[in-house]
């Protein structure tokens, strides 16, 4: 019975995403969507994806990370470099698919490597170190110059001239100017497919042997160990998968703009905390909530641009209302009452 309930709940989650997609597609096809809003659809989706990734880390594994945008940054740059290098060599669908493979794999690798020292820490300490790693990733990428010519790859930390490239060379990462001219392969449909895949992976994981072990580590690592659960292994597993999904969001990010730079606005700790806000308000451990909260909280400030000075005021009021609605005991009671009434009427 619990199994059926779980499957039903998962289907509702997929249904909400698909429903949202269909509504947006219909509005777009019938020309009812402003170009401003159209431009927000892909970012909204990749923020939902990274919120799901962060919820895996914070809600399911129980470790607070505030550097997740760093993994998104890695996914974005790895895939952008790949796409630029193969722009003329591969047809678009294959290239974009491989860009996902590269972005996810590199982000997962970094998740694994960073996880080794970071996951030895607990609580606040872990949060601070993830924050530091997020910043380090962003700053290192800002300092790298990377180019390719007939002789092979060149790398420098000083400037473009230092690369010493042949005339036929191509600069891929131009320091703080980042990567320009990445093909804009991403669109809303692909973004939604990636979101559905991310949800599929996380929801299925939660309902499997490994997922239960991860949640056991979260609830009580001492008891988990004495029940034969390899705590380190499962922490690494969850953290790496979380980084990989954040990397997928990064691939969408870099293939949705022509000029990719590692700025604080997108990859700094403020951005990481914004995603943490999505996760907390959507409900820690509640994957569906993360998607909904990311969509609402990303679109809202953008939609309110017309109101200018009142924009952030309204945004913060919405934050408070959502927090109350989700967590205040009175609100939870009220929600349960409404739910019961609804079920009774249907029965």
């Amino acid at each position, binding site marked *: *019975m*619990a199994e059926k309930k779980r499957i039903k709940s998962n289907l509702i989650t997929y249904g909400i995403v698909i429903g949202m997609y269909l509504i947006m597609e219909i509005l777009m096809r019938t020309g009812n969507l402003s170009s401003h809003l159209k431009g927000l659809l892909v970012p909204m989706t990749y923020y939902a994806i990274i919120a799901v990734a962060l919820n895996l880390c914070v809600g399911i594994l129980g470790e607070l990370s505030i550097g997740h945008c760093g993994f998104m940054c890695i996914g974005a740059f790895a895939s952008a470099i790949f796409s630029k290098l193969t722009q003329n060599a591969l047809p678009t669908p294959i290239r974009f698919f491989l860009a996902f493979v590269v972005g996810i794999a590199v982000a997962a690798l970094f998740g694994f490597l960073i996880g080794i020292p970071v996951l030895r820490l607990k609580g606040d300490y872990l949060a601070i170190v993830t924050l530091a790693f997020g910043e380090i990733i962003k700053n290192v990428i800002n300092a790298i110059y990377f180019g390719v010519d007939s002789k092979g790859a060149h790398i420098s930390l000083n400037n473009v001239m230092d690369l010493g490239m042949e005339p036929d060379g191509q600069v891929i990462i131009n320091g703080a100017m980042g990567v320009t001219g990445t093909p804009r392969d991403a669109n809303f449909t692909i973004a939604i497919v990636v979101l559905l895949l991310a949800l599929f*992976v996380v929801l*299925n*994981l939660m309902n*499997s*042997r*490994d*997922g*239960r*072990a991860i*949640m*056991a580590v*979260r*609830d*009580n690592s*001492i*008891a*988990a*160990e*004495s*029940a*034969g*659960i*390899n*705590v380190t292994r499962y922490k690494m*597993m969850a953290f790496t998968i979380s980084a990989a999904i954040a990397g997928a969001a990064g691939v969408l990010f870099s293939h949705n703009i022509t000029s990719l730079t590692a700025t604080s606005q997108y990859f700094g700790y403020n951005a990481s905390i914004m995603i943490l806000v999505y996760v907390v308000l959507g409900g820690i*451990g509640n994957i569906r909530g993360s998607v909904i909260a990311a969509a609402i909280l990303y679109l809202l400030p953008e939609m309110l641009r017309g109101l200018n000075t009142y924009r952030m005021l309204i945004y913060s009021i919405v934050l408070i209302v959502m927090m109350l609605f989700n967590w205040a005991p009175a609100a939870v009671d009220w929600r349960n009452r409404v739910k019961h009434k609804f079920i009774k009427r249907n029965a």
Partner: protein
Amino acid sequence: MALLQVNNLSIAFGGLRAVDDFSLEIEKGELYGLIGPNGAGKTTVFNLLTGVYKPNEGIIRLDGEDITRKNTIEINHAGIARTFQNIRLFHQMSVIDNVKVGLTERFKYSGIEGVLHVGRYKAMEKAMDEEAMKLLKVFGLDSERDVLASNLPYGKQRKLEIARAMATSPKLLLLDEPAAGMNPNETAELMETIALVRKEFNMTILLIEHDMKLVSGICEKLTVLNFGRVLKQGETKEVLDDPEVIKAYLGED
């Protein structure tokens, strides 16, 4: 040969010899009690047996296998499961999932199969559900299978913790003050549960307890610890009647 054989176990924390020259033999199927005043080193013995602490001296053998230097996870796989003095459940997970965590190492399928829900996933999950329900039935928790562990009443939380330990199919079960915080009714019920575990699974049990009624009621043999050293070892009745033991517990006249 004894199932658990402990020889001359010692550990010191700084200058304090918390456990000193501790030896113990438990035969298969025995219910053995470890008692002693507060601070005598009982829980430290448990932590040594389960690899939480590494002893300075001594050897621990389970079923002939030397497990002295193994870590907690390896010792669990070797066949020792335990419960805790202060209950440690996976409180945000359902009752059945708590038990299924204990089954993790016995019903295996790959991570890929788990994420895609293909291959061995369905069959293994079904087998795990059946095995978990079998255990929950023994402990009378089958009607609460989908309840969150933190929402169970205290007595049932204790039972669930034992059920989870049993799920790892141990050779030896360690119970750390199972009756702590229980009223007489709950204690009586717990005694029945422990008797049931022995009968159903033919389990060897080592338990720490303060409740003398429980100890004298179910334990066959006792070891009394005092200041980290063995004060007396032997048949329950004989040990409890020993003047040295009475002195350690009740003080001198």
